Protein backbone atom coordinates (compact mmCIF):
# COMPACT_ATOMS: atom_id res chain seq x y z
CA UNK A 1 0.00 0.00 0.00
CA UNK A 2 3.04 2.29 0.31
CA UNK A 3 3.13 3.29 -3.32
CA UNK A 4 -0.41 3.88 -4.49
CA UNK A 5 0.50 5.86 -7.57
CA UNK A 6 -0.08 3.99 -10.76
CA UNK A 7 -1.81 3.54 -14.05
CA UNK A 8 -5.35 2.27 -13.57
CA UNK A 9 -8.44 1.80 -15.68
CA UNK A 10 -11.64 3.47 -14.52
CA UNK A 11 -13.12 0.09 -13.65
CA UNK A 12 -10.10 -0.82 -11.53
CA UNK A 13 -10.45 2.49 -9.70
CA UNK A 14 -14.07 1.75 -8.82
CA UNK A 15 -13.15 -1.66 -7.38
CA UNK A 16 -10.19 -0.33 -5.39
CA UNK A 17 -12.24 2.59 -4.07
CA UNK A 18 -15.00 0.22 -2.98
CA UNK A 19 -12.56 -1.79 -0.90
CA UNK A 20 -11.06 1.40 0.54
CA UNK A 21 -14.59 2.55 1.43
CA UNK A 22 -15.08 -0.65 3.42
CA UNK A 23 -16.96 -2.79 0.91
CA UNK A 24 -16.63 -6.40 2.04
CA UNK A 25 -19.14 -8.19 -0.17
CA UNK A 26 -19.36 -8.39 -3.91
CA UNK A 27 -21.77 -10.47 -5.97
CA UNK A 28 -21.80 -10.17 -9.74
CA UNK A 29 -22.18 -11.72 -13.15
CA UNK A 30 -19.86 -11.20 -16.13
CA UNK A 31 -20.85 -8.49 -18.59
CA UNK A 32 -18.88 -6.12 -20.81
CA UNK A 33 -17.86 -3.38 -20.20
CA UNK A 34 -17.98 -3.78 -16.41
CA UNK A 35 -16.36 -7.21 -15.90
CA UNK A 36 -13.01 -5.77 -14.81
CA UNK A 37 -14.66 -4.50 -11.63
CA UNK A 38 -15.64 -8.05 -10.73
CA UNK A 39 -12.21 -9.36 -11.76
CA UNK A 40 -10.44 -6.96 -9.39
CA UNK A 41 -12.90 -7.78 -6.60
CA UNK A 42 -12.29 -11.53 -7.05
CA UNK A 43 -8.59 -10.88 -6.60
CA UNK A 44 -8.63 -8.30 -3.81
CA UNK A 45 -11.60 -9.15 -1.57
CA UNK A 46 -10.30 -12.54 -0.35
CA UNK A 47 -7.09 -10.81 0.73
CA UNK A 48 -8.99 -8.58 3.13
CA UNK A 49 -11.34 -11.36 4.30
CA UNK A 50 -14.27 -9.94 2.35
CA UNK A 51 -16.67 -12.15 0.43
CA UNK A 52 -16.76 -12.47 -3.34
CA UNK A 53 -19.19 -14.57 -5.31
CA UNK A 54 -19.89 -14.93 -9.01
CA UNK A 55 -23.60 -15.72 -9.02
CA UNK A 56 -25.67 -17.69 -11.52
CA UNK A 57 -27.25 -14.54 -12.98
CA UNK A 58 -27.72 -10.80 -12.55
CA UNK A 59 -30.94 -11.18 -10.58
CA UNK A 60 -29.20 -13.40 -8.06
CA UNK A 61 -26.20 -11.08 -7.72
CA UNK A 62 -28.42 -8.20 -6.69
CA UNK A 63 -30.25 -10.49 -4.25
CA UNK A 64 -27.05 -11.82 -2.70
CA UNK A 65 -25.72 -8.28 -2.19
CA UNK A 66 -28.94 -7.30 -0.38
CA UNK A 67 -28.91 -10.45 1.75
CA UNK A 68 -25.31 -9.77 2.74
CA UNK A 69 -26.04 -6.10 3.51
CA UNK A 70 -28.50 -7.22 6.19
CA UNK A 71 -25.79 -9.16 7.99
CA UNK A 72 -24.02 -5.81 8.54
CA UNK A 73 -21.55 -5.56 5.66
CA UNK A 74 -21.17 -2.98 2.94
CA UNK A 75 -22.09 -4.66 -0.34
CA UNK A 76 -21.79 -3.92 -4.02
CA UNK A 77 -22.64 -5.28 -7.44
CA UNK A 78 -21.75 -4.04 -10.91
CA UNK A 79 -23.10 -4.56 -14.38
CA UNK A 80 -24.05 -2.84 -17.60
CA UNK A 81 -27.47 -1.85 -19.01
CA UNK A 82 -28.77 -5.32 -19.95
CA UNK A 83 -27.72 -6.64 -16.54
CA UNK A 84 -29.29 -3.69 -14.75
CA UNK A 85 -32.58 -4.50 -16.53
CA UNK A 86 -32.41 -7.91 -14.85
CA UNK A 87 -31.37 -6.49 -11.50
CA UNK A 88 -34.33 -4.09 -11.59
CA UNK A 89 -36.51 -6.55 -9.67
CA UNK A 90 -34.21 -6.47 -6.68
CA UNK A 91 -33.29 -2.81 -6.98
CA UNK A 92 -36.94 -2.30 -6.08
CA UNK A 93 -36.57 -4.72 -3.18
CA UNK A 94 -33.54 -2.76 -1.97
CA UNK A 95 -35.56 0.48 -2.22
CA UNK A 96 -38.56 -0.77 -0.25
CA UNK A 97 -36.47 -2.56 2.38
CA UNK A 98 -34.21 0.53 2.50
CA UNK A 99 -31.03 -1.45 2.01
CA UNK A 100 -27.70 0.35 1.59
CA UNK A 101 -26.05 -1.13 -1.47
CA UNK A 102 -23.95 0.25 -4.32
CA UNK A 103 -24.81 -0.63 -7.92
CA UNK A 104 -22.37 0.21 -10.69
CA UNK A 105 -23.61 0.52 -14.25
CA UNK A 106 -20.88 0.91 -16.85
CA UNK A 107 -23.27 2.06 -19.55
CA UNK A 108 -23.19 0.78 -23.10
CA UNK A 109 -25.62 1.13 -25.97
CA UNK A 110 -29.09 -0.40 -25.93
CA UNK A 111 -31.93 -1.36 -25.85
CA UNK A 112 -31.44 -5.09 -25.29
CA UNK A 113 -27.95 -6.40 -26.04
CA UNK A 114 -27.36 -3.18 -27.94
CA UNK A 115 -23.79 -2.27 -28.73
CA UNK A 116 -21.39 -4.10 -26.44
CA UNK A 117 -18.30 -2.12 -25.47
CA UNK A 118 -19.47 1.04 -27.24
CA UNK A 119 -20.06 3.97 -24.94
CA UNK A 120 -23.43 5.56 -24.29
CA UNK A 121 -25.33 7.45 -21.63
CA UNK A 122 -28.63 5.76 -22.41
CA UNK A 123 -29.30 4.38 -18.94
CA UNK A 124 -29.73 7.59 -16.95
CA UNK A 125 -33.51 7.26 -16.98
CA UNK A 126 -33.25 3.53 -16.32
CA UNK A 127 -31.37 4.43 -13.14
CA UNK A 128 -34.19 6.76 -12.14
CA UNK A 129 -37.19 4.59 -13.04
CA UNK A 130 -35.79 1.16 -13.97
CA UNK A 131 -37.66 -0.68 -11.25
CA UNK A 132 -41.42 -0.36 -10.97
CA UNK A 133 -43.27 1.71 -8.42
CA UNK A 134 -42.49 5.02 -6.74
CA UNK A 135 -39.02 4.94 -5.24
CA UNK A 136 -36.13 7.27 -4.48
CA UNK A 137 -32.94 7.20 -6.53
CA UNK A 138 -29.44 8.40 -5.90
CA UNK A 139 -27.15 8.21 -8.93
CA UNK A 140 -23.65 9.54 -9.44
CA UNK A 141 -22.08 10.24 -12.84
CA UNK A 142 -18.29 10.47 -12.50
CA UNK A 143 -16.58 12.42 -15.26
CA UNK A 144 -12.92 11.47 -14.97
CA UNK A 145 -10.52 8.95 -13.47
CA UNK A 146 -10.19 10.75 -10.13
CA UNK A 147 -13.95 10.78 -9.76
CA UNK A 148 -14.24 7.08 -10.59
CA UNK A 149 -12.34 6.58 -7.35
CA UNK A 150 -13.57 9.36 -5.05
CA UNK A 151 -17.18 9.26 -6.19
CA UNK A 152 -17.28 5.52 -5.51
CA UNK A 153 -16.28 6.27 -1.93
CA UNK A 154 -19.01 8.91 -1.82
CA UNK A 155 -21.52 6.42 -3.24
CA UNK A 156 -20.88 4.08 -0.31
CA UNK A 157 -21.20 6.99 2.12
CA UNK A 158 -24.52 8.07 0.63
CA UNK A 159 -25.83 4.50 0.69
CA UNK A 160 -25.06 4.31 4.41
CA UNK A 161 -26.34 7.75 5.21
CA UNK A 162 -29.66 7.40 3.41
CA UNK A 163 -30.16 3.62 3.64
CA UNK A 164 -30.87 3.25 -0.04
CA UNK A 165 -29.30 1.82 -3.18
CA UNK A 166 -26.87 4.21 -4.88
CA UNK A 167 -25.95 3.97 -8.54
CA UNK A 168 -22.61 4.83 -10.07
CA UNK A 169 -23.22 5.46 -13.76
CA UNK A 170 -19.92 5.18 -15.52
CA UNK A 171 -19.60 4.75 -19.23
CA UNK A 172 -17.41 2.59 -21.36
CA UNK A 173 -14.92 5.41 -22.02
CA UNK A 174 -14.33 6.02 -18.33
CA UNK A 175 -14.41 2.31 -17.50
CA UNK A 176 -11.73 1.25 -19.94
CA UNK A 177 -9.36 4.19 -20.13
CA UNK A 178 -5.94 3.84 -18.52
CA UNK A 179 -4.57 6.82 -16.73
CA UNK A 180 -2.32 7.72 -13.88
CA UNK A 181 -3.90 8.22 -10.52
CA UNK A 182 -2.40 8.59 -7.10
CA UNK A 183 -4.67 6.81 -4.67
CA UNK A 184 -4.91 8.25 -1.17
CA UNK A 185 -4.13 6.28 1.94
CA UNK A 186 -7.51 4.72 2.86
CA UNK A 187 -7.15 6.15 6.37
CA UNK A 188 -7.28 9.66 4.89
CA UNK A 189 -10.66 9.05 3.31
CA UNK A 190 -13.87 10.39 4.74
CA UNK A 191 -15.74 7.09 5.15
CA UNK A 192 -19.19 6.76 6.72
CA UNK A 193 -19.12 3.59 8.79
CA UNK A 194 -22.26 1.48 9.22
CA UNK A 195 -23.98 2.26 12.49
CA UNK A 196 -25.80 -0.91 13.41
CA UNK A 197 -28.77 -0.53 15.72
CA UNK A 198 -28.19 -1.86 19.22
CA UNK A 199 -31.32 -2.05 21.41
CA UNK A 200 -31.33 -0.43 24.84
CA UNK A 201 -33.33 -2.00 27.69
CA UNK A 202 -35.05 -4.64 25.58
CA UNK A 203 -36.26 -2.04 23.10
CA UNK A 204 -37.75 -3.62 19.97
CA UNK A 205 -35.97 -2.83 16.73
CA UNK A 206 -38.19 -1.13 14.19
CA UNK A 207 -36.46 -1.30 10.77
CA UNK A 208 -38.86 1.34 9.41
CA UNK A 209 -39.22 3.55 12.46
CA UNK A 210 -40.78 6.87 11.46
CA UNK A 211 -40.05 8.63 14.73
CA UNK A 212 -36.29 8.92 14.18
CA UNK A 213 -36.17 11.31 11.23
CA UNK A 214 -36.38 10.48 7.56
CA UNK A 215 -33.85 7.64 7.68
CA UNK A 216 -34.64 4.85 10.15
CA UNK A 217 -31.75 3.20 12.00
CA UNK A 218 -30.12 0.29 10.17
CA UNK A 219 -30.19 -3.07 11.88
CA UNK A 220 -28.51 -6.38 11.15
CA UNK A 221 -29.31 -10.05 11.50
CA UNK A 222 -27.72 -12.19 14.21
CA UNK A 223 -27.20 -9.30 16.66
CA UNK A 224 -29.36 -10.55 19.51
CA UNK A 225 -32.64 -9.13 18.23
CA UNK A 226 -34.87 -10.36 15.47
CA UNK A 227 -36.89 -8.58 12.82
CA UNK A 228 -38.66 -9.03 9.52
CA UNK A 229 -38.10 -7.62 6.05
CA UNK A 230 -40.47 -7.88 3.14
CA UNK A 231 -40.97 -6.51 -0.35
CA UNK A 232 -44.60 -5.86 0.57
CA UNK A 233 -45.68 -2.48 1.87
CA UNK A 234 -45.04 -2.67 5.56
CA UNK A 235 -45.35 -0.94 8.91
CA UNK A 236 -42.53 0.30 11.21
CA UNK A 237 -41.76 -3.28 12.26
CA UNK A 238 -41.46 -4.48 8.68
CA UNK A 239 -44.67 -6.48 8.84
CA UNK A 240 -46.95 -6.43 5.79
CA UNK A 241 -49.75 -3.91 6.07
CA UNK A 242 -52.83 -2.90 4.12
CA UNK A 243 -53.49 0.09 6.35
CA UNK A 244 -53.70 3.06 3.99
CA UNK A 245 -52.27 5.72 6.29
CA UNK A 246 -49.27 3.55 7.08
CA UNK A 247 -48.63 2.79 3.40
CA UNK A 248 -48.83 6.48 2.47
CA UNK A 249 -46.64 7.65 5.35
CA UNK A 250 -43.96 5.04 4.71
CA UNK A 251 -43.93 5.64 0.93
CA UNK A 252 -43.71 9.38 1.41
CA UNK A 253 -40.93 9.10 3.95
CA UNK A 254 -39.02 6.80 1.61
CA UNK A 255 -39.21 9.39 -1.18
CA UNK A 256 -38.54 12.35 1.09
CA UNK A 257 -35.46 10.90 2.72
CA UNK A 258 -33.73 11.66 -0.59
CA UNK A 259 -35.79 14.66 -1.80
CA UNK A 260 -35.50 16.52 1.51
CA UNK A 261 -31.77 15.97 1.63
CA UNK A 262 -30.98 16.76 -2.00
CA UNK A 263 -28.54 19.49 -0.94
CA UNK A 264 -26.39 16.90 0.83
CA UNK A 265 -26.41 14.63 -2.22
CA UNK A 266 -26.26 16.97 -5.21
CA UNK A 267 -22.79 17.85 -6.47
CA UNK A 268 -21.90 19.83 -9.59
CA UNK A 269 -18.83 21.19 -11.26
CA UNK A 270 -19.21 24.68 -12.70
CA UNK A 271 -16.43 25.18 -15.25
CA UNK A 272 -15.60 28.52 -16.91
CA UNK A 273 -18.98 29.80 -15.76
CA UNK A 274 -18.06 33.14 -14.12
CA UNK A 275 -18.03 35.30 -17.23
CA UNK A 276 -19.82 32.88 -19.55
CA UNK A 277 -22.69 33.85 -21.82
CA UNK A 278 -23.72 30.34 -22.75
CA UNK A 279 -23.92 27.12 -20.75
CA UNK A 280 -23.22 23.59 -21.89
CA UNK A 281 -25.01 21.12 -19.64
CA UNK A 282 -23.28 17.73 -19.82
CA UNK A 283 -22.32 14.86 -17.52
CA UNK A 284 -19.99 11.85 -17.38
CA UNK A 285 -17.48 11.58 -20.23
CA UNK A 286 -19.59 14.03 -22.25
CA UNK A 287 -19.07 16.50 -19.40
CA UNK A 288 -15.33 16.07 -19.85
CA UNK A 289 -15.70 16.66 -23.59
CA UNK A 290 -17.75 19.79 -22.84
CA UNK A 291 -14.94 21.23 -20.72
CA UNK A 292 -12.47 20.89 -23.56
CA UNK A 293 -15.07 22.26 -26.00
CA UNK A 294 -15.53 25.28 -23.76
CA UNK A 295 -11.80 26.01 -23.94
CA UNK A 296 -11.79 25.68 -27.71
CA UNK A 297 -14.86 27.90 -28.05
CA UNK A 298 -13.28 30.53 -25.82
CA UNK A 299 -10.22 30.57 -28.09
CA UNK A 300 -12.70 31.39 -30.85
CA UNK A 301 -14.16 34.22 -28.80
CA UNK A 302 -17.31 32.49 -27.54
CA UNK A 303 -17.77 32.77 -23.78
CA UNK A 304 -19.00 29.32 -22.91
CA UNK A 305 -19.17 27.65 -19.49
CA UNK A 306 -20.04 24.12 -18.44
CA UNK A 307 -22.57 22.94 -15.86
CA UNK A 308 -21.51 19.38 -15.11
CA UNK A 309 -23.65 17.45 -12.62
CA UNK A 310 -21.69 14.83 -10.69
CA UNK A 311 -24.87 13.68 -8.98
CA UNK A 312 -27.56 13.19 -11.63
CA UNK A 313 -30.27 11.86 -9.24
CA UNK A 314 -31.64 13.68 -7.39
CA UNK A 315 -31.50 16.17 -10.24
CA UNK A 316 -29.77 19.49 -9.37
CA UNK A 317 -33.06 21.43 -9.63
CA UNK A 318 -32.09 24.19 -7.22
CA UNK A 319 -28.57 24.73 -8.52
CA UNK A 320 -29.61 24.78 -12.18
CA UNK A 321 -32.52 27.07 -11.34
CA UNK A 322 -30.09 29.53 -9.70
CA UNK A 323 -27.94 29.55 -12.83
CA UNK A 324 -30.93 30.18 -15.08
CA UNK A 325 -32.49 32.76 -12.73
CA UNK A 326 -29.21 34.72 -12.49
CA UNK A 327 -30.02 36.30 -15.84
CA UNK A 328 -26.35 36.08 -16.84
CA UNK A 329 -26.78 33.52 -19.57
CA UNK A 330 -28.24 33.63 -23.07
CA UNK A 331 -28.81 29.94 -23.70
CA UNK A 332 -28.14 26.33 -22.70
CA UNK A 333 -26.94 23.47 -24.83
CA UNK A 334 -27.52 19.98 -23.43
CA UNK A 335 -25.10 17.35 -24.72
CA UNK A 336 -25.61 13.67 -24.00
CA UNK A 337 -24.76 10.32 -25.59
CA UNK A 338 -28.37 9.24 -26.07
CA UNK A 339 -31.36 10.43 -28.06
CA UNK A 340 -32.65 12.76 -25.36
CA UNK A 341 -33.11 11.89 -21.69
CA UNK A 342 -31.68 14.47 -19.29
CA UNK A 343 -32.56 17.32 -21.64
CA UNK A 344 -36.19 16.95 -20.50
CA UNK A 345 -35.12 17.48 -16.89
CA UNK A 346 -33.25 20.63 -17.93
CA UNK A 347 -36.38 21.83 -19.76
CA UNK A 348 -38.49 21.07 -16.68
CA UNK A 349 -36.26 23.25 -14.49
CA UNK A 350 -35.85 25.92 -17.17
CA UNK A 351 -39.62 26.51 -17.49
CA UNK A 352 -39.11 28.18 -20.84
CA UNK A 353 -36.82 30.93 -19.58
CA UNK A 354 -33.74 30.32 -21.74
CA UNK A 355 -33.47 28.86 -25.23
CA UNK A 356 -32.37 25.21 -24.96
CA UNK A 357 -30.53 23.46 -27.78
CA UNK A 358 -29.46 19.84 -27.93
CA UNK A 359 -26.55 17.71 -29.01
CA UNK A 360 -27.82 14.17 -28.92
CA UNK A 361 -25.56 11.46 -30.26
CA UNK A 362 -26.02 7.71 -30.30
CA UNK A 363 -23.87 5.86 -32.80
CA UNK A 364 -21.44 3.87 -30.68
CA UNK A 365 -18.90 6.69 -30.56
CA UNK A 366 -18.49 9.19 -27.74
CA UNK A 367 -19.68 12.79 -27.86
CA UNK A 368 -16.37 14.47 -28.68
CA UNK A 369 -15.28 18.03 -27.97
CA UNK A 370 -15.33 18.60 -31.74
CA UNK A 371 -18.98 17.47 -31.91
CA UNK A 372 -19.85 19.97 -29.19
CA UNK A 373 -17.91 22.84 -30.76
CA UNK A 374 -19.49 22.23 -34.17
CA UNK A 375 -23.01 21.94 -32.79
CA UNK A 376 -22.58 24.98 -30.60
CA UNK A 377 -21.46 27.11 -33.55
CA UNK A 378 -24.45 25.85 -35.50
CA UNK A 379 -27.10 26.67 -32.87
CA UNK A 380 -25.77 29.70 -30.98
Amino acid at each position, binding site marked *: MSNRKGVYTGNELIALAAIDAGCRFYAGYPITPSSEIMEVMSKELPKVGGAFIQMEDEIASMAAAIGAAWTGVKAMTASSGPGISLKAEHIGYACITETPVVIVNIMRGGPSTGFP*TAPSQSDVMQARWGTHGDHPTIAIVPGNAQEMYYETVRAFNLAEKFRTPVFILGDEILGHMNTMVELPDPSELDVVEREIFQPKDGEKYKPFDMSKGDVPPMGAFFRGYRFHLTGLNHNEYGYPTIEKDMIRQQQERMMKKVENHADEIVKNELFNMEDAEYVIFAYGSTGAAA*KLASKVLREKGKKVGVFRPITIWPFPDKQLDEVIASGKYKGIMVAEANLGQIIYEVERVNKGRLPIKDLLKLDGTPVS*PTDIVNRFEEVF
Partner: protein
Amino acid sequence: MSFHFEARFGAIGGQGIITAGAFLATAAIMQGMNAVQSPTYTSQVRGGPTKVDVIISEDEILFNRCTKLDLFLATAQRPYDLYYTDLKDDTLVILEENLVKNVREDGRKIIKVPIIELAEKEIGLTVTTSVIATGIVVAVTEIVKPDLMKEAILSRVPKGTEAINIKAFELGYEVGKKYR
Protein backbone atom coordinates in the same frame (compact mmCIF):
# COMPACT_ATOMS: atom_id res chain seq x y z
CA MET B 1 1.89 26.55 -26.20
CA SER B 2 2.65 23.72 -23.85
CA PHE B 3 3.45 20.26 -25.07
CA HIS B 4 0.51 18.14 -26.25
CA PHE B 5 0.61 14.97 -28.35
CA GLU B 6 -2.16 12.71 -29.58
CA ALA B 7 -1.65 9.30 -31.15
CA ARG B 8 -4.05 6.67 -32.44
CA PHE B 9 -3.13 3.07 -33.21
CA GLY B 10 -5.63 1.03 -35.22
CA ALA B 11 -5.29 -2.74 -35.45
CA ILE B 12 -7.08 -6.06 -35.37
CA GLY B 13 -8.19 -7.53 -32.03
CA GLY B 14 -5.54 -9.95 -30.77
CA GLN B 15 -2.55 -7.99 -32.11
CA GLY B 16 -1.97 -6.46 -28.69
CA ILE B 17 -2.46 -2.86 -29.77
CA ILE B 18 -4.41 -1.83 -26.65
CA THR B 19 -1.55 -2.97 -24.44
CA ALA B 20 0.93 -1.22 -26.74
CA GLY B 21 -1.01 2.01 -26.15
CA ALA B 22 -0.76 1.42 -22.43
CA PHE B 23 3.05 1.02 -22.72
CA LEU B 24 3.33 4.40 -24.39
CA ALA B 25 1.06 6.14 -21.87
CA THR B 26 2.92 4.52 -18.97
CA ALA B 27 6.30 5.61 -20.35
CA ALA B 28 5.04 9.18 -20.75
CA ILE B 29 3.82 9.16 -17.16
CA MET B 30 7.23 7.89 -16.03
CA GLN B 31 8.72 10.82 -17.91
CA GLY B 32 6.62 13.17 -15.77
CA MET B 33 3.87 14.02 -18.21
CA ASN B 34 0.11 13.51 -18.02
CA ALA B 35 -1.11 10.67 -20.20
CA VAL B 36 -4.21 8.61 -20.86
CA GLN B 37 -4.78 5.50 -22.91
CA SER B 38 -8.33 4.95 -24.09
CA PRO B 39 -9.27 1.81 -26.03
CA THR B 40 -12.18 1.04 -28.35
CA TYR B 41 -13.07 -2.46 -29.33
CA THR B 42 -15.99 -4.58 -30.35
CA SER B 43 -17.29 -7.71 -28.64
CA GLN B 44 -15.25 -9.70 -31.16
CA VAL B 45 -12.22 -10.48 -29.02
CA ARG B 46 -10.12 -11.80 -31.89
CA GLY B 47 -10.20 -10.37 -35.36
CA GLY B 48 -12.40 -7.32 -34.85
CA PRO B 49 -11.22 -3.78 -35.57
CA THR B 50 -9.66 -2.16 -32.54
CA LYS B 51 -8.13 1.18 -31.75
CA VAL B 52 -6.38 2.83 -28.91
CA ASP B 53 -6.01 6.58 -28.35
CA VAL B 54 -3.05 7.87 -26.38
CA ILE B 55 -2.87 11.48 -25.24
CA ILE B 56 0.32 12.86 -23.72
CA SER B 57 0.28 16.39 -22.36
CA GLU B 58 1.92 18.83 -20.01
CA ASP B 59 -1.55 20.15 -19.18
CA GLU B 60 -4.45 18.43 -17.49
CA ILE B 61 -6.11 16.11 -20.01
CA LEU B 62 -9.77 17.05 -20.00
CA PHE B 63 -11.05 14.50 -22.48
CA ASN B 64 -9.53 11.09 -22.99
CA ARG B 65 -10.20 10.54 -26.67
CA CYS B 66 -8.14 12.14 -29.41
CA THR B 67 -9.52 15.13 -31.24
CA LYS B 68 -6.45 16.31 -33.17
CA LEU B 69 -4.08 13.52 -34.05
CA ASP B 70 -0.35 14.08 -34.29
CA LEU B 71 0.17 10.47 -35.28
CA PHE B 72 -1.99 7.79 -36.84
CA LEU B 73 -0.78 4.21 -37.12
CA ALA B 74 -2.68 1.29 -38.65
CA THR B 75 -1.67 -2.32 -39.00
CA ALA B 76 -4.61 -3.43 -41.15
CA GLN B 77 -6.99 -2.07 -43.79
CA ARG B 78 -10.25 -2.27 -41.79
CA PRO B 79 -9.07 -0.23 -38.79
CA TYR B 80 -7.32 2.15 -41.20
CA ASP B 81 -10.62 2.83 -42.96
CA LEU B 82 -12.69 2.93 -39.79
CA TYR B 83 -10.53 5.10 -37.56
CA TYR B 84 -8.98 7.51 -40.10
CA THR B 85 -10.68 10.52 -38.48
CA ASP B 86 -9.66 13.43 -36.23
CA LEU B 87 -6.53 14.04 -38.33
CA LYS B 88 -4.77 17.38 -38.70
CA ASP B 89 -3.16 18.55 -41.95
CA ASP B 90 0.27 17.50 -40.70
CA THR B 91 -0.64 14.24 -38.94
CA LEU B 92 2.09 11.66 -39.45
CA VAL B 93 0.72 8.37 -40.79
CA ILE B 94 2.48 5.03 -40.22
CA LEU B 95 1.14 1.97 -42.01
CA GLU B 96 1.76 -1.77 -42.17
CA GLU B 97 2.64 -1.81 -45.84
CA ASN B 98 1.48 -5.33 -46.71
CA LEU B 99 -1.92 -5.07 -45.05
CA VAL B 100 -2.91 -1.48 -45.72
CA LYS B 101 -3.00 -1.37 -49.51
CA ASN B 102 -5.74 1.13 -50.19
CA VAL B 103 -4.03 4.28 -48.93
CA ARG B 104 -5.36 7.83 -49.07
CA GLU B 105 -2.62 9.95 -50.67
CA ASP B 106 -3.88 13.19 -49.14
CA GLY B 107 -0.63 15.05 -48.79
CA ARG B 108 0.20 13.82 -45.31
CA LYS B 109 3.57 12.22 -44.63
CA ILE B 110 3.21 8.43 -44.81
CA ILE B 111 5.72 5.90 -43.53
CA LYS B 112 5.21 2.32 -44.74
CA VAL B 113 6.84 -0.53 -42.83
CA PRO B 114 6.26 -4.29 -43.22
CA ILE B 115 5.71 -4.62 -39.46
CA ILE B 116 4.10 -8.07 -39.45
CA GLU B 117 6.81 -9.45 -41.72
CA LEU B 118 9.40 -8.11 -39.24
CA ALA B 119 7.55 -9.76 -36.37
CA GLU B 120 7.43 -13.10 -38.16
CA LYS B 121 10.94 -13.10 -39.62
CA GLU B 122 13.01 -11.24 -37.05
CA ILE B 123 11.23 -12.12 -33.82
CA GLY B 124 9.33 -15.24 -34.84
CA LEU B 125 6.11 -14.16 -33.16
CA THR B 126 3.27 -12.27 -34.86
CA VAL B 127 1.89 -11.04 -31.52
CA THR B 128 4.92 -8.79 -31.15
CA THR B 129 3.62 -6.66 -34.05
CA SER B 130 2.27 -3.98 -31.73
CA VAL B 131 5.43 -3.73 -29.67
CA ILE B 132 7.50 -3.34 -32.85
CA ALA B 133 5.06 -0.63 -33.88
CA THR B 134 5.62 1.27 -30.64
CA GLY B 135 9.38 1.00 -31.25
CA ILE B 136 8.89 2.67 -34.62
CA VAL B 137 6.67 5.35 -33.07
CA VAL B 138 9.14 6.15 -30.31
CA ALA B 139 12.03 6.32 -32.77
CA VAL B 140 10.22 8.54 -35.25
CA THR B 141 8.56 10.93 -32.80
CA GLU B 142 11.06 10.82 -29.91
CA ILE B 143 8.04 11.37 -27.73
CA VAL B 144 9.43 9.38 -24.79
CA LYS B 145 12.90 8.18 -23.91
CA PRO B 146 13.49 4.63 -25.21
CA ASP B 147 14.82 3.50 -21.82
CA LEU B 148 11.62 4.58 -20.09
CA MET B 149 9.61 2.83 -22.78
CA LYS B 150 11.48 -0.38 -22.02
CA GLU B 151 10.81 0.12 -18.34
CA ALA B 152 7.12 0.63 -19.07
CA ILE B 153 7.03 -2.54 -21.17
CA LEU B 154 8.74 -4.54 -18.41
CA SER B 155 6.23 -3.25 -15.85
CA ARG B 156 3.26 -4.53 -17.80
CA VAL B 157 4.20 -7.72 -19.70
CA PRO B 158 3.66 -11.22 -18.30
CA LYS B 159 6.60 -12.93 -16.62
CA GLY B 160 8.77 -14.86 -19.07
CA THR B 161 7.99 -12.62 -22.03
CA GLU B 162 10.24 -9.73 -21.01
CA ALA B 163 13.16 -10.55 -23.30
CA ILE B 164 11.12 -11.08 -26.43
CA ASN B 165 9.13 -7.88 -25.89
CA ILE B 166 12.28 -5.82 -25.39
CA LYS B 167 13.81 -7.40 -28.48
CA ALA B 168 10.69 -6.48 -30.47
CA PHE B 169 10.77 -2.90 -29.20
CA GLU B 170 14.45 -2.52 -30.05
CA LEU B 171 13.87 -3.90 -33.53
CA GLY B 172 11.07 -1.39 -34.13
CA TYR B 173 13.23 1.38 -32.72
CA GLU B 174 16.13 0.59 -35.08
CA VAL B 175 13.81 0.44 -38.08
CA GLY B 176 12.07 3.65 -37.02
CA LYS B 177 15.30 5.64 -36.68
CA LYS B 178 15.68 5.56 -40.48
CA TYR B 179 12.49 7.57 -40.89
CA ARG B 180 13.32 10.41 -38.51
